[in-house]
């Protein structure tokens, strides 16, 4: 090999190594600027009264308590709908189903559902829950829509969790005379539970942050009364951010409130995800099989 060629290869490698490092640095830098901006601007308006008061003076002052409450209602109800359904679906797929066309159809449906744009879920919720079932714009319609949106996440996470339970556990249960159902409910699910919960927690974060599915099914910019039943329309954190930025007449006062609301939503979503990561990490360390 000629020395000039050797140098060329070295230089080429050097340039590309710099570019690869740069690609992750740029991504991280942008994201850090993004997070710092949101937290710095929103942190200024954050206070206990911001969290616990209702909006005042046509959305230009006061707090976001109704939006926090609305998001909690939507998230809790959608998890109540989606978690049992998702876990049972995962049990079927991993414990009962035999490979073949039938299972392929189910899996394709789950994967397709996971890729449907969130606004299309919103239209579906509008056409079916709001109009056809006459649930109106309500917590019920919104959380049913969100439940379908997070179902694929829960199924996939639960199935992964169930798969990590070693077969020897099942064989031990059978050897003790347990039936298949007993093996699943007494051995497989309890063993997989922490990982199933991780999936549920991640989907909580997803449901809390989604705006498009609740635009026409649950959310309202402003309501005087706090929700008293699941048939009420509610304020919600992500929708509140959008509405503050695009509606209303006093952007000067509204934008800081939008930043404050973003920090609350961001902390909610990030802490929920962080909990999931920590649980997974600790499980991996504790696992002895």
């Amino acid at each position, binding site marked *: 090999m000629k020395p000039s060629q050797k140098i060329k290869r070295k230089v080429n*490698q050097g340039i*590309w*190594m710099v*570019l*690869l*490092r*740069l*690609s*992750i640095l*740029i*991504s991280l830098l*942008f*994201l850090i600027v*993004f997070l710092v*901006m*949101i937290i710095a601007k929103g942190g200024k308006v954050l206070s206990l009264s911001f969290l616990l008061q209702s909006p005042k003076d046509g959305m230009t002052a006061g707090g976001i308590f109704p939006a926090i409450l609305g998001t909690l209602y939507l998230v809790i109800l959608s998890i109540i709908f989606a978690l*049992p359904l*998702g876990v*049972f679906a995962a*049990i*079927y*797929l991993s414990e009962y189903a035999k490979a073949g066309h039938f299972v392929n159809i*189910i899996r*394709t*449906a789950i*994967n*397709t*559902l996971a*890729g*449907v*744009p*969130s*606004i*299309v879920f919103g*239209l*579906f919720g*509008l*056409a*079916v829950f709001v*109009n056809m079932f006459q649930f109106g714009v309500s917590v019920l319609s919104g959380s049913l829509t969100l439940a*379908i949106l997070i179902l*694929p996440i829960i199924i996939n996470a639960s199935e992964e969790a169930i798969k990590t339970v070693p077969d020897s556990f099942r064989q031990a249960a059978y050897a003790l005379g347990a039936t*298949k*159902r007993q093996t699943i409910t007494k051995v497989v699910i309890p063993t997989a539970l922490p990982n199933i919960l991780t999936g549920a927690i991640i989907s909580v974060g997803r449901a809390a942050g989604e705006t*498009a599915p609740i*635009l*026409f099914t649950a959310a309202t910019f402003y309501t005087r009364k706090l929700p008293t039943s699941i048939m009420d329309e509610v304020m919600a954190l*992500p*929708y509140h*951010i*959008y509405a503050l*930025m*695009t509606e209303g007449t006093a952007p000067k006062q509204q934008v800081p409130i*939008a930043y404050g609301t*973003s920090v609350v*939503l*961001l902390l909610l*979503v*990030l802490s929920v*995800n962080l909990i999931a990561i920590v649980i997974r990490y600790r499980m991996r360390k504790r696992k002895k099989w």
Partner: protein
Amino acid sequence: MKFKESAFKYIALFAALCSVIFLFGIIVSIFKEGYPIFKIYGVIKFLFTTSWHPTHDEPTFGIAALIIGSFVVTIGSLIVAIPLGVGSAIFLSEIAGFKTRELLKPFVELLAGIPSVIYGLFGMAFLAPFVMRLFNLSTGLNAFTTSIILGIMVVPIIASISEDAISSIPKELREASYALGANKWETIYKVILPAAKSGIIASIILGFGRAIGETMLVLMVAGGSAIIPKTIFSPVRPMTAAIAAEMGETVVGSEHYHALFGIAIVLFILTFASNLITESVKRKVMREHNL
């Protein structure tokens, strides 16, 4: 006992079938509500004319400009996200040490969970004014600003799936390449990337699906004008933004209402197709690795 056993099994079967039922329900409902616009207005006219004036006295429902708007911001975002995402993935799996990787991977996962409405707020309140001043434009809410933020949002998706694809390449391939005298970059470029090609393509298609279906961010940042953009700095109105912005004002059962569901059909078909491609690529990857 026996009854309980089979009841349990059938409950599980029903739960699994629910996904099929819901998907079917989504397809039926958007086609049922969207079909009338094809009948009234004609499929060709709906898809290929550019005049979108749904609230005029003589309304027109041509969505070509909306489709172009969607593609402009999606392709723009991929131009940002592919080099950053794939580059980050290569860095994480081939260059970073164990500790850096263990630290950055959860961070990337965490970022993938940030709600898009917060990206939208950032775009509207911070990046758009910045872009406006930098390029001396009349508005910063345009396809360019949208592409950048949307791209940043898609980076974690492309990075995490590409990283999985690259790390699953057997060590022997790398060792063989080094044994032949290749240096690190030559190994990455000539051995790793070709071997991980399918997985990387899958990640890009998934990123495409996510970007074209994204609603809140484009609704807030893209500017909202339903005309074919002249430059990358023109405001656009992607399909998702049109649905989100206009559905609240339509009367159930009106032509406009049906037209918005018609847009949802187009969106659904696009994301469904990109999903099927991702699936088949993934299956191909699995076959390749079983060799």
